[in-house]
C-alpha cells in the first residue's frame, strides 16, 4: 500500500511539467537552508566542509527551485533527534540539507547527507557516499541530483561533465570538466585544431574533428583510456558530427562530393546515406530525441537558416523564418524545443523555438552567445559567451534565467557539451 502510494505520488509529480516554469519566475521558490557540514569521525577538514556546502548551494541555486540560504541557527548533529527543527523553522526554512563527513584515512572520505522537510519535521532523503577526499563535491552533486528527484520526480544533471574546446594551451584542444567548471582535464594534446566534441550516449566515448592530419577528419576517442580511432577522413570536410540518440549512427557534414553536404555514417565510418543533395552549403545536423528527424543549417535560400528533415533526408521543411542568419540548432532531450543561434548586431544570441518553428523566444542578450547544448534532463543549457571579449562557458535554465559562468580559464573556451 505504502509503496503503491509512493509510486502514485511520484507519477503525479512527473506529470507536473509546469513546476519548473512556475518556480523559475522567482515567486515560488522554496526556502532551502544548507547547514554547515559537520565532522562525524576522524579529523576536521575545512576544505571538505566548504566544498560540500559550496557544491550543494551552487546546484540548488542554479536549479531555480529553491531560495538557498546558508548560516546555522543551531549546530546539532545531522540525524533526526540529534538537532532541533525549531530554530530552522524560525529562520524561515522549508527544507533543510544536513551533511556530515568523516575523513578516516588520508584519502578516505565518507559523506552522509540528509534532506529534511522542516515544517513536517520529516526526513525526505538520505545518502551516504564513500570515496577519496577529492570527491567531496562529486558526492554533494550526487545528492543534489537526488534532491531534484525527490522534489520533481526527475533527477538533476549535476554529476554530469562538460566536454569543450579550449585554446588555453595556445591550440584548440578538447577538454573535460565537471559541469560546475571544476576538475578540468585536457583530453587531446595534438597541437593542431580540434573542434565540435559530441558524446556517445554511453558517455564513455566522444567524437571530434581534428586537423592533426592536415585535413579536418572525424575521430572517436575513449575518454578514460585515450584510445582513438579514425572515423571519417574523406578529403575535405568531416565536420559538425552529431551522434544519433541510439549511438549507432553519426550525421555529419562532408565535402568529398564537391561542397559541404550532410551524410549518415556508422561509428566505424561506413557511409549509410547521403542525406542532402543540394547546391547549397549544409552543416550542423542535430538529432531529434527519438532519432527520427534531423534539424540542420542550409543556405539554400541565400543566407544560413535552420531546416528540418526526416532522418532519411526526405520531407525537408524550413524552420526559422525571422532573422537573416540562424545557425546551430540543438534539439532538447524532451519537450519538442530547439535551441539555436541568431546573428544580431555583430554577434550571436541564443533563441529557442518549437520543433515546428513556432513560438520562438530569445534567451540571451548580453555580449555574444553561441553553441547552445542541453543538459541531458533538458532543464539547462550550456553555451559559450563573449562578454567583454573574454570567452567563457556558461550554464542557464532552459528559460534563459540563472545565467552563470562556470569555466575559470582566461583562455577562450567554446563548444560545451553536457555528458549524457
Amino acid at each position: 500500500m505504502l509503496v503503491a502510494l509512493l509510486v502514485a505520488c511520484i507519477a503525479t509529480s512527473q506529470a507536473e511539467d509546469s513546476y519548473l516554469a512556475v518556480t523559475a519566475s522567482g515567486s515560488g521558490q522554496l526556502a532551502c537552508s544548507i547547514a554547515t557540514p559537520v565532522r562525524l569521525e576522524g579529523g576536521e577538514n575545512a576544505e571538505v566542509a566548504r566544498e560540500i556546502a559550496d557544491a550543494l548551494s551552487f546546484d540548488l541555486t542554479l536549479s531555480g527551485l529553491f531560495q538557498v540560504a546558508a548560516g546555522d541557527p543551531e549546530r546539532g548533529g545531522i540525524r533526526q533527534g540529534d538537532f532541533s527543527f525549531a530554530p530552522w523553522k524560525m529562520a524561515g526554512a522549508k527544507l533543510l540539507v544536513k551533511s556530515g563527513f568523516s575523513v578516516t584515512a588520508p584519502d578516505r572520505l565518507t559523506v552522509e547527507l540528509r534532506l529534511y522537510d522542516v515544517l513536517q519535521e520529516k526526513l525526505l532523503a538520505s545518502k551516504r557516499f564513500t570515496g577519496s577526499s577529492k570527491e567531496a563535491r562529486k558526492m554533494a552533486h550526487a545528492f543534489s541530483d537526488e534532491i531534484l528527484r525527490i522534489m520533481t520526480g526527475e533527477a538533476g544533471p549535476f554529476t554530469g561533465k562538460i566536454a569543450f574546446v579550449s585554446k588555453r594551451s595556445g591550440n584548440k584542444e578538447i577538454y573535460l570538466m565537471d559541469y560546475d567548471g571544476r576538475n578540468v582535464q585536457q583530453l587531446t594534446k595534438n597541437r593542431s585544431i580540434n573542434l565540435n566534441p559530441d558524446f556517445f550516449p554511453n558517455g564513455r566515448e566522444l567524437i571530434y574533428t581534428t586537423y592533426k592530419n592536415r585535413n579536418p577528419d572525424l575521430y572517436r576517442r575513449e575518454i578514460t583510456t585515450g584510445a582513438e580511432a579514425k572515423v571519417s577522413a574523406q578529403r575535405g570536410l568531416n565536420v559538425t558530427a552529431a551522434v544519433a540518440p541510439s549511438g549507432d549512427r553519426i550525421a555529419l557534414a562532408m565535402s568529398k562530393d564537391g561542397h559541404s553536404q550532410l551524410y549518415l555514417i556508422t561509428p566505424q565510418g561506413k557511409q549509410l546515406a547521403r542525406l542532402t543533395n543540394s547546391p547549397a552549403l549544409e552543416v550542423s545536423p542535430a538529432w531529434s530525441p527519438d532519432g527520427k528527424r534531423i534539424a540542420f543549417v542550409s543556405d539554400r535560400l541565400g543566407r544560413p537558416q535552420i531546416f528540418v528533415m526526416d532522418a532519411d533526408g526526405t520531407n525537408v521543411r524550413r524552420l526559422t523564418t525571422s532573422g537573416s542568419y540562424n545557425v546551430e540548432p540543438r534539439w532538447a532531450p524532451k519537450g519538442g524545443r530547439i535551441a539555436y543561434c541568431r546573428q544580431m548586431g555583430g554577434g550571436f544570441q541564443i533563441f529557442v523555438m518549437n520543433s515546428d518553428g513556432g513560438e520562438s523566444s530569445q534567451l540571451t542578450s548580453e555580449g555574444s552567445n553561441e553553441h547552445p547544448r542541453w543538459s541531458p534532463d533538458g532543464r539547462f543549457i550550456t553555451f559559450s559567451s563573449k562578454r567583454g571579449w573574454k570567452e567563457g562557458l556558461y550554464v542557464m535554465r532552459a528559460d534563459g534565467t540563472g545565467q552563470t559562468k562556470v569555466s575559470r580559464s582566461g583562455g577562450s573556451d567554446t563548444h560545451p557539451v553536457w555528458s549524457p
Partner: protein
Amino acid sequence: MRTSMTTLFAAFCCTMMMVAGCAKQEMVKQESPPIETAVVVPPQPKPTPPPVKEEPAPPPVIKEKITTTEEISTLNEDPAASKQFQTIYFGFDAITLSETARDTLAKNAVALKKNKGLKVQIQGHCDERGSDAYNLALGEKRAKSAYDYLVTLGAPANQLYVISYGKERPADTGHDEAAWAKNRRDDFVVLK
C-alpha cells in the same frame, strides 16, 4: 493568470509534501539508521571495457573514388617556398572570384606549372563574424573556387589540395572591417 499559477503551485507543493510523507514513512519501515548507502566511485573513471580499438582504425568503407588525405598528413608547411604564391581575397559572405583575384590566380597558375611536383594546399578562410560551423563550409567553397579556376588555367590538379580553416586561422586578429577584409582569403601553402 498569476493567481491560477500560484494555486497550481500550492497544489503542487501539497503533492510534494505527500511525496515527502510517503518517502519518510517508507524510510521509517527500514531499520534505523535509515541510511541508503550508495558508494560513490572508486577514485577515477569506472573501469570500462575499451570499445575503441587502438590504431589502426577500421578503414572507412567508401564506394566513391575519393582518396583520403593521408598522402599529405605528414608534410609540413614551407613558408619560404609559399612566398611565390599570392593570397587572394573575397568580399563579405562571397565565394566568387573578383577580377583582382583572377589576375592573382593566373600568376599562381604560372608558378605551379613551373614547379612540377610541388604540393600546394589551397587554404580557405573566413572572417570572424559568421558561425564557426557555417564558416568551415564557406572557407571550403572559397578554396574550391580557386582550385577550379587554377585547373581551368591548366594548373596540375594532382598537385593541389583544398582545405578549409573556417575562421580558425585569421591573418589579422583585429575585430574591424580592415581585419575582416584580410581574413576573407585563400592562402596558397607549399607542403614539404
